[in-house]
């Protein structure tokens, strides 16, 4: 364990920022590519009876006599007969009329998926997503403060914020669509990353009891990191195996969720080793310096 991970911490912080900053800029410039779960609307996935073009499908939308429907809809063709049509909110009758019209024009239609989310639901979803992440963060700080100490709770939550920003930022940067499962993915990543962080903190807690008084904090944490690094890497690897398999051969409908989990688990593994513990060292050193300064002022 010749290399001191803690003394090199500035490089780790820089690497994190290098990934996070472009994502955050993208987030501010054009936000996330929100799916209908958040925006409200209808998405129809249909397999037509014969090959068609986007223009032909758009003509059918136009002929529905619903003001602005064709203009405000986005039609995506994933095979000669398979179309994904994103539309503003339709009533049941309108949606059924459209399916009927598609079937008539293209010699039959198989509805693979038809989703509708009203604006009311989407508003509640955003609120719930925000609240749940906040609640998870607060509860984790409380738990870590009870079992460890407050500064470790703070460091852990900053590492979690890191993971959330990495995943959200990359999704914003590459315009990957997010739906309600994205929130579940974020929370799972949080759960997973904190898991990693805690295992390292547990080792630090144990080593602090055993190590002789003169040992520098940096060296103690460095030792703890090296003692747990095989486990950290192995654990991330096993989860990566499963997620990669799901991404490559799993169903198309959960691809975005699996991708978010995959990025998040890698980021979580990284932040547990290279952010949470180094940050805690920085916090401890600041605290110590402030105490010394106060003592000097008092003297």
């Amino acid at each position: 364990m010749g290399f001191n991970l803690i003394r090199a911490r500035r490089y780790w912080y820089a690497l994190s920022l290098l990934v996070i900053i472009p994502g955050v800029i993208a987030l501010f410039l054009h936000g996330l590519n929100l799916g209908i779960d958040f925006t409200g609307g209808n998405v129809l996935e249909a397999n037509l009876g014969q090959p068609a073009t986007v223009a032909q499908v758009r003509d059918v939308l136009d002929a529905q006599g619903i003001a602005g429907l064709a203009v405000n809809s986005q039609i995506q063709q994933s095979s000669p007969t398979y179309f994904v049509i994103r539309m503003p909110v339709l009533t049941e009758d309108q949606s059924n009329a459209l399916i009927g019209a598609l079937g008539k024009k293209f010699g039959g239609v198989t509805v693979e998926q038809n989703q509708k989310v009203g604006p009311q639901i989407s508003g509640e979803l955003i609120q719930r997503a925000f609240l749940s992440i906040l609640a998870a963060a607060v509860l984790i700080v409380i738990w870590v403060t009870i079992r460890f100490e407050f500064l470790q709770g703070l460091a852990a939550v900053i590492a979690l914020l890191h993971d959330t920003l990495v995943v959200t930022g990359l999704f914003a940067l590459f315009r990957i669509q997010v739906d309600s499962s994205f929130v579940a993915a974020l929370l799972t990543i949080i759960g997973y990353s904190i898991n990693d962080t805690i295992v390292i903190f547990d080792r630090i807690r144990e080593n602090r009891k055993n190590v002789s008084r003169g040992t520098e904090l940096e060296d103690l944490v460095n030792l703890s990191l090296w003692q747990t690094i095989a486990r950290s890497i192995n654990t991330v690897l096993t989860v990566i195996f499963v997620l990669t398999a799901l991404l490559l051969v799993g169903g198309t409908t959960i691809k975005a969720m699996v991708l978010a989990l995959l990025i998040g688990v890698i980021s979580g593994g990284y932040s547990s080793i290279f952010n949470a513990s180094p940050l805690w060292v920085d916090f401890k050193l600041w605290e110590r310096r402030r105490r010394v300064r106060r003592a000097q002022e008092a003297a």
Partner: protein
Amino acid sequence: MDGKRILQMVVTLIIVAAAAVAVFAPAAPGLPVIKDIPLGLDLQGGVHVVLQAVGTPEAPVTPDSMKRVQAIIANRVNGLGVSEPVIQLQGSDRLLVDLAGVKNPDQVIGTLIKPAFLEFKNEAGQDVLTGADLQDAQESTSPGGEPVVDLTLTAAGAKKFDAATKAAVAVTPHQTIAIYLDGKLLSKPRVDEEIPNGKAEIHGGFATLQDAHNLAVLLRSGALPVKLSVLESRTVGPTLGADSLSRSIRAGIVGVIAIFLFMLLYYRMPGLVADFALIIYTLIMVGIFAALRVTLTLPDIAGFLLSVGIAVDANVIIFERFREELRSGRSVRSAIDAGFKRGFTAVFDSNATTLIVAAVLYYFGTGEVKGFAVTLGLGILVSLFTAVVITRWLLHVTAEAGLVKNNKIFFGVEGGR
């Protein structure tokens, strides 16, 4: 060699193998257990819809009217012949309906939200009968081969109908009685004679007997007391569902085999034991899913596979400790106990935080996300049990059976003293 330990090993292997056969292998009535797990609508196709009750001054939304709405929707769903439907009140004015395995999901939604308000009107436009006067409605085929719906009226309805038909035949030419459903004219037959027996018939407007059947179901279940609108709906066709299921199963097998190989190659003997414990973990989870009849959806499968990762992690933490103890010169036997003892706080604290997150997901999540949270939470608890109790015991049994001489190398520590 320790005969008792070897016997325990053999018995464990037989029990787990038997359980695995019961869970996964086909044939035999009631087996395999895995068939008892209901599939969510994203895996077998179906409808998920959230209905919003919209009140009017004449028909406000009350707890009582919502209960009636729920009962009426349940009747309509039964009429459609859907197995294991979910019909739940959500909040004070919403109704959630999940119907798996429906072939024509979009028509079904249309049928569910029909007000089904039936009116019989005389030529003066006065109400003669309404749906409330109905006792029964059945589809049938008229002698002319036309699909019709036969109505049986209540005693009060029969009296009203008798009076109305008597009035209609009292004048020449005889008057008509018009039948409206939700304000739409269905038919307008001319009354030939007085009908005192409380029987009536709706004809016209049915292309097939199925159409007549659908109307009969609607009329039997009664008119909705409030208007319903669709707040959210998701329908998945059966082909897409089947495709998602087979793909997830394939992905799961590939991922789990990768984990097994990795654990075996990296941790050797303990890795093999952990793989065996993972099989037990999977069997327990499938058993719980089947016993609680947890509906399995795509996010659940993802959650389950992720929980396998977490279950492995508990083993990895402990095995790393175990190796350290071995390297420091302990015997295999005492290293197992020391490894578990010192690894336990890490396993406990880390799993507790993940459990907190699962609880948050459950509390704030809706539908699918809630299911995912349950899977994750159950997975954490069961994996704690398998890692701390089962793996430990298995390791002891394996180590003490004395089947291998060079223990330390077998346990993945080079040059153990």
